[in-house]
């Protein structure tokens, strides 16, 4: 007796979509939060430089950019599942 189930690709795709959106949300909150706090309305005298970047650019954008790149690679190679795609027209 065949049982009707949800497509396996649909399940993994839905889970991956939610995780990806979660990563986006985390990155957005961190970057915007950091930059709003330290990049806006600041006394120019207090500005320092990290590796040549203004400090808030470095910690608020360059570092999370690197972290996101690493997370994306982990996501791609260890989290996202491969699924068979149907033949065209099936």
């Amino acid at each position, binding site marked *: *007796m*065949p*049982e*009707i*189930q*949800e*497509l*396996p*690709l*649909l399940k*993994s*795709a*839905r889970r*991956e*979509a939610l*995780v*990806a*959106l979660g*990563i*986006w949300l985390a*990155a*957005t909150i961190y*970057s*915007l939060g950091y*930059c*709003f706090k330290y*990049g*806006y*309305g*600041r006394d*120019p005298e207090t*500005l320092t*430089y990290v*590796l*040549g*970047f*203004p400090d808030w*650019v470095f910690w608020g*954008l*360059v570092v*999370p*950019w*690197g972290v*996101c*790149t690493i997370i*994306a*690679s982990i*996501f*791609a*190679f260890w989290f*996202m*599942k*491969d*699924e068979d*795609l*149907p*033949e*065209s*027209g*099936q």
Partner: protein
Amino acid sequence: MLAATDITNPGYSVLFALLLFIAASVWLGTLAQKAMEKKEFLKGFFLGNRGLGAWALALTATVQSGGTFMGFPALVYSHGWIVLLWIGSYMVVPLLSFAVVGKRLAQLSRMTDSFTVPDLLRERFADPRVGLVSSIMIITFMSFTMFAQFKAGATIMKHAWPGSGVLALSEDYEPTAAEKAEAKEGRTSASSPHDSKPIDRKYYVGLVVFTVTVVGYTLIGGFLASVWTDLFQSVMMVIGVTILVCLAVPMAGGLEQASRTAIENTSSDIVFGPGFSTNGRQFLTPGLALSMFFIWIFGGFVSPASMVRVMAAESTEVMRKSICLLSCYNCLIYIPLVMTCIAARTMLPHLEKPDEVIPRMSMLVTKGLPGGQFISGLILAAPFGAIMASVSCFILVISSGLVQDIYVRFLNPAATEAQIRRATNISMIGVGLIAVIANLDPPQYLQALVVLSASGGGAAFTIPVLMACYWRRTTAAGMLAGMLVGFCFYFGLSAAGWLQNWAAAATESSTFARSVIGLLGPDPKIGVPGLFRPYYIFGIDPMVWSLVVSAFAGIGTSLVTKPPAEEHVSRFFDVAVVK
């Protein structure tokens, strides 16, 4: 800084590099034509028979447009470090581009045997209206983005013209000086009477050469030609950016020194939010920064160009690899570009037209090097290639929409292959002609137009595409409501912004303008200047509001309309497992 003596030489080498690039693209076009000849015309021409590999998918799916090399650097040059926050969400764009709807779209497009997005949506809901509406919207949005690219392509050709770019680089940075010199040589007639218009005849020549090339090789090779030239230019671009940043930053005395000099040349605003500005307009307020984190993401993965490439991906493994490749690629492009343009504030402190910052920088930094002229030619050729590639992609998506979604579906369902081919050729040439006409008097800020259409497309499609992929209860009416309400809301707010813009300028003379201002409030003085400034509710971009409204409309309408037939939905959601 520059000797005015070698005027012609570097010009020729840049032109030479561009011609090489054009030749390579046409060659790739003919290769692509051979590769697809055997298969069915439509699927081969518009989807490359679903065989894209990881590199091709990664480096071409989020189109590196002319905006990347022209509009974006111009913004950095004008406003400073804050522009890295403006583009900051690109740190997660690669992930979201493929992980949110990629697999599911690839699956659905195969299940429905469709090769355009409207086709897919029509089959998914068994409703031609969904197809027609999405098709019209895609054609509209892509046209805006594409027209902006033509300007960029023509501008680069103009600079590559022997004697033009370098002449414009002479010490006094005044476009009128270049024009006077040209007028003296008797080469221009149209541009000299009104000095306020810095567009000259070379721009038109560039526009025509550019258009003929792109339309030509896209006609020859179709989707694969577009993807291959895109891949080729993406590699060239990362090389170009790397050379540029490695030369420019040391020449400006290091990155920290570049920032300090930029502060001296402008003000300390250039290293802080909301950015340096000469017109009293706050470039990136916190509300707009937040908006950009929505715009790039949700304008990205549902952009028609991106969806079509995901549909053409060979397998899900290809998508996984693409996430990683594109993430690394973006790191190498955006941060170095910002560094280069910060350095430009030291080396070219007072550019009249910030759009030209990269072409001018590449000519300037390679000047002293052995073979520098050729290197600068290559750096200039890379963005030219980027622009060609994205234009070619847009022409394809637009004409696939015109041909498949409108001609075949509505006008002539029984079209023969020869007729389809002819319709394809006609639509592509037509699109090219319209683009030329639209660019005879191009808008000032390229990136503003790109943003307008990217966020407009995102506003219309994000929620409906997510619903089509993952929600069984979605109805055709819900899709239509989601798309149309998102679209209309976005355009409504944009139109309100234009109206407000006009009214702000006309309050003295018109009572209607005063009543508009009374209703909409005064110009908030945020964002980029120009005609295409939308109306910001609470300082947030219309895109974000449109997403919210589109979600309410789409979900609400689906819930109050009759549920879709279970056996139809089951075809896309279920599988029978034998226990």
